[in-house]
């Protein structure tokens, strides 16, 4: 049983990490008052993340 990520998974997670660390980190505090993180949602949509549960 090996749970090490495939190269493809590692690359995908790396891309999300890059986006989250560079763009989401700096604005995380502003969502504590209930503001919806639209900018982050749109950035993730552009990356294809939001379609992950949707069949092709």
């Amino acid at each position, binding site marked *: 049983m090996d749970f090490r990520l495939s190269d493809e998974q590692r690359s995908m*997670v790396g891309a999300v990490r890059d986006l989250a660390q560079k763009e989401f980190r700096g604005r995380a505090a502003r969502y*504590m008052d209930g503001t919806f993180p639209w900018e982050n949602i749109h950035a993730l949509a552009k990356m294809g993340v*939001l379609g992950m549960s949707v069949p092709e």
Partner: protein
Amino acid sequence: MFDTALVLEEIAKVCYVTAMAVMGEVGVQTRIISTFAPEHVKRRILPGVCTGEHILAVCMTEPHAGTDVARYRTNADIRGDKVVLNGVKTLISRVDEAQAFVVFSRIDQRPGREGIGCVLIEKGTPGFSVTGRYHTMGGENLAEIRFENCELPLENLIVREDGFRKLLNAFNTQRCLNPSISLGLAEGAFEEAIKNARERHAFGHSISEFQGMRWKFADMYRDIEAGRSLLYRACVTANPFPDPHEAAIAKMYCNEMSLRITSEAIQVHGGYGFTEEYPVSRFYRGARYGTLGGGTTETLKDLVGRKLFSDFSEVDGFLGMKTF
């Protein structure tokens, strides 16, 4: 599903609110539409979910019934080619942003858990109103919504027969996605803490040189990796939905582990950790959600405990449980 969990984990290392919003879009409500809705409903709703234009909310909890699904009162009466929805749902996320709501509802007043199905209602439907608001310690807003004789087309009745079993399968997905956020919060807190420990000095030394601090980090790291093992193992059982018991123990462990780790991360920061200016306090607040949503820890312990007494064989032992 494993890929979805990995993505949520990575987002949660930085922002709990965004991770929760994304879980909404890739979680149970989208999977219900993808799996059970008629083709033209999928085509109407799902493209917008992919582009981030369409936010989908899921409505389960009622003011008097959370875990006790059999006591749901929200009801959808089928009247010819229409469905009429009445009831109240509470603690609903993203009510202001969502265009459509996937509502777990009793169908034609059929009693018990077996009477539960699912309808889709779009915002702006006459009779739909927001009747209460809550702001959570994690940051996001929740709301209470009321349906008063909301008329829906029959195609919006997404799950009618055998609803509870079908919906529970979809819901088991949440039991891997929720803990992926807990795991991410713990990792994010750990990353902040280790950075802090390297930079902070006391008594002429970096605090990272103190044995007590090293032991603390070793414990944190061990607990995070244990959580990862349980969660990833549950995720790989998904075909398309995960094994309910493996998902349950992964959730139980990761939810409680994230509370311990985020608290320790604050401890490493000292007094600064208690302020809003340092991200660790946000991780700690967000982590508190885990044991409450997507199936409480108590419900999951009940599920696992029942399985143990029904399936654990004294002849085969752990081998017979077939988790490895």
